């Protein structure tokens, strides 16, 4: 078993965990964490296949995509946190509720 | 086996021992202040031994300088964070006590 196979299988599991978290978690912060975990799974998939395609160095295109992706994920997480905190300030709600 | 490898192995084993001691301390000690002690002292010593071992093994002056700086920064960061966390916790407990009394 190669290194990249372990990590690519892990990436699928992480993505599914994040997806489940987005559906099932109640609190805003947990939902945000779940989306970041989902993103982490996708990045892990990219980088593991970059390692498979290595010649003299690992495939640089997925690495570059993942670096930009991480920073974009951080920007979107900051936006999501701002939204969540604003909602909490205005309504006092910590999660999406139906009864209102 | 070369002599530098033997030295590196000895230093790494000692470092691992201190890491284990630090982790056990974090798990077993009763309150935050003694846990801080275990973590920031024992672990830094362990890191120092591992850093020394790797500096001996890699045996390049530039890398040794970098490793030394890594250890120095870790010492600085963890000693100050030990102080800051302890002070923070003490203030929290004091304000809690004041509230319970008043």
């Amino acid at each position, binding site marked *: *078993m190669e290194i990249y196979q*372990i990590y690519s*299988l892990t990436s699928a599991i992480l993505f599914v965990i994040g997806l489940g978290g987005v559906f099932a978690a109640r609190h805003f912060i947990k939902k945000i964490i*779940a989306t970041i*975990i989902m993103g982490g799974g996708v*990045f892990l998939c990219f980088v593991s296949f970059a390692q498979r*395609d290595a010649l003299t160095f690992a495939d640089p295109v997925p690495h570059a995509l993942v670096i930009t992706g991480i920073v974009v994920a951080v920007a979107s997480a*900051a936006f999501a946190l*701002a939204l969540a905190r604003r909602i909490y300030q205005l309504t006092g709600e910590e999660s999406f509720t139906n009864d209102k | 086996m070369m002599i530098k490898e033997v030295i590196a192995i000895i230093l790494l084993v000692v470092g691992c021992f201190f890491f284990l001691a630090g982790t056990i301390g974090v798990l077993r000690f009763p309150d935050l202040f003694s846990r801080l002690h275990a973590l920031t002292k024992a672990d830094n010593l362990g890191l120092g031994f591992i850093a020394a071992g790797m500096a001996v093994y890699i045996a390049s002056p530039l890398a040794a300088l970098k490793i030394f700086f890594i250890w120095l920064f870790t010492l600085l960061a963890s000693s100050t964070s030990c102080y800051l966390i302890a002070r923070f916790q003490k203030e929290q407990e004091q304000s809690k006590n004041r509230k319970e009394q008043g």
Partner: protein
Amino acid sequence: MSILIDILLAILGVYLAMQSLLASRLSQSVFLFFAFGLALALAWVRLGAVDVAITEAAIAAGFLGVLFLDALRDFSPRDTEEQQNLTTVQNSLSRKESKSLLLPRLALVLGLGLFLLIALEAVWKIPEGGGLTAAAETLLPESGVEHPVTAVLLNFRAYDTWLEIGVILLGLLAVFAVGGIQIYRKPIAAADDPLMRQVILFFTPVLFLFGAFLLYIGKSGPGGAFQAGVLWGAIGILLHFGGIPVYSWVPRWLGHLLLTLGLVFFLLLGFLFMAAGDNLFEYPPAYAGLLILIVETLAAISIAAALTAIFANLNQMKKEQPNDTAQK
């Protein structure tokens, strides 16, 4: 034999991800998430992606950590009494819902299991195409830098990188839109602790120098604009904690200039060479190294400014709350 490390790391990562979502208390889940970030950084080291590992270490240990701590303070209950009320309410809620939500939960678990199987099969059977390694390798001498990842980021796929700086700026604008733009005026509680002031004074130049080192070394090894940007952004956050919010004493026009510098210069350069007859973001190989260094520096400054502004805005957001409640 070395596969042992990978298996352990993979199990650790999956466990941390699962527990950070399943943990009952919010602070548990946030700190488990930090640990997940560190495990991910180690995984990238194992996969040979050192650039990604530096970025992830900077983001997970620094920026996201501070953002989440800040948010955690907002959401954690103010009083023990309030907390008790909250837990009782939550208990009653969960008891009520446990019956009515049984079917959706079963469906969710089944769907996720099915999806997991599909994803595992898909990942297992991704065909070997060879990737773009060979193309990058042949074009590397023309790019002006020696490190393939930097070459891809700032030369071959410069369009992506340019848009990506724009996305960070967009994130800042979105945070402004949510939190309000008249933010930077209030003074912040200064660091009253002499030791903390010294630590901030010590780590500011260290962060700056190390960021500059990463920026420069990006030409020939792992490092580059994003890593340097995050490290320089950490300077802004540290100064903010030390009672010197950067945007309160920098004049407003300079702040805006710093924020847009990278984006504008990148675009200007692209159009300049397009006017000279090349494609968008195509540099002449003779000057490419120098141009890439300049672009990277400006991009790092812009990223640092944007991250600092995002943090300052988010940190100030909750400060309005006690005033709001007092007015009510």
